[in-house]
């Protein structure tokens, strides 16, 4: 597999992780603001209070799911870099074998080392693909969490419309919540597409 493609995914992982962490902090802050607003208005915003509470709980759950992301990215990067290491060694063996062949020499231990090296690369490719599939599953869990959060935001908009006469700025709060969720949703969707394309490439190698 092309190392430059892997590097693009590594850079995308870094950018996605930063974006997700920042957006989740923002979601948590928005949820807290909503809770404070509800407390300030007492029973008049009881309905919105349920929404704000759900929003905050979902935000905590998203944070938990996102925390598993880094734990899966690091082993994937290590596996890909081990493959790069062994490709380098395999390339040296290949150069040596070609030089010997030009001299009419045949070296059985060298051929054995070449075979071992290729076997190791194949094993690492399989392992890397397994890690990649687990990473995609983690991203899927995050996406599901975001979809639930979007549903909560929609409910929040309805409650905000119903409680408009209280004078509380719920429409703005709901809009801010929606924007924060949309940002993280976009980041995750883009990242998933990049992982999918890497998965497609790696499946052709095995």
């Amino acid at each position: 597999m092309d190392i430059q493609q892997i590097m693009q995914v590594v850079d995308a992982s870094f950018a996605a992780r930063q974006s997700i962490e920042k957006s989740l902090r923002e979601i948590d802050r928005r949820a807290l603001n909503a809770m404070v607003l509800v407390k300030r208005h007492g029973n008049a915003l009881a309905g919105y209070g349920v929404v704000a509470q759900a929003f905050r709980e979902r935000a905590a759950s998203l944070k938990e799911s996102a925390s598993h992301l880094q734990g899966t990215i690091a082993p994937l990067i290590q596996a890909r870099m081990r493959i790069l290491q062994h490709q380098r060694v395999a390339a040296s063996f290949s150069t040596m074998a070609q030089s010997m062949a030009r001299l009419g020499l045949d070296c059985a231990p060298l051929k054995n080392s070449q075979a071992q090296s290729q076997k190791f690369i194949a094993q690492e490719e399989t392992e890397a693909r397994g890690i990649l599939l687990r990473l995609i599953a983690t991203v899927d869990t995050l996406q599901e969490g975001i979809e639930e959060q979007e549903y909560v935001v929609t409910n929040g908009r309805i409650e905000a419309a119903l409680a408009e006469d209280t004078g509380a700025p719920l429409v703005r709060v709901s809009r801010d919540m929606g924007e924060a969720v949309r940002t993280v949703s976009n980041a995750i969707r883009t990242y998933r597409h990049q992982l999918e394309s890497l998965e497609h490439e790696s499946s052709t190698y095995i």
Partner: protein
Amino acid sequence: MKAAPIFEAGNHRWWILYDQDEHRVIDSNVYVMESNGQSIILDPGGFEVFPQVFAALVEVVPPNSLKAAFVSHQDPDIASSLPLWHACNEQIQWHIPKLWDGFIRHYGALEAPLQDIPDEGGDMLIGGRRLEFIPAHYLHSSGNFHLYDPEAKVLFSGDVGAALLPPGHGAWVDRRDKSGRAFEEHITKAKYFHERWMPSNAAKKDWINRVCKLEIDYLCPQHGAIYSGDNVQRFFEWFDGLNVGTAINE
């Protein structure tokens, strides 16, 4: 391998990558400095530990921000990963001691862009910040440099200050201890390294005289743990009084 911050002021940051997971090769620290979205890696490590160094680096900076690498001397624990880094990022400019150019190329990647540092030292810019190459010849390598960041007051000191610590070690010589006891305990793990790997008392004296004039908040060795605050001066005093080159002296 873990990553820990050393210094941060706005968009100017330093990290240490430390406590490697592979114990059959000498444990080495790798440092990263980032300025305005550009980064440099210092003594990027050996071929065998490359995957874990790379994974730890990605914790702190995006790999495409890596514009330069600094190689203090020619040893394999410092630069044998060069061809792998080059395969990942061909844009990295490698700053290496001129004396070792033809030797370092033996690690591979003959086409990698190597910038020779002359014996007298020099400087470079990364992300708009100036870093100085401080000559440290014969400490321990005959062509050897340290790297100084005058703004962060960080001195990357290569093998000077190195200690042989067990797996699971921390990034710092205990910063909370003001009594100097933590330093005294740590330095016992640095003693043999300096006595045996450092060949020249004259080179040691010359280095101490020059480096003592710099403002240093963090002395960052390639093995062991970082000296900060009072421990920097404690280290200079200890090193000054140490007899090195003991394989001959004895």
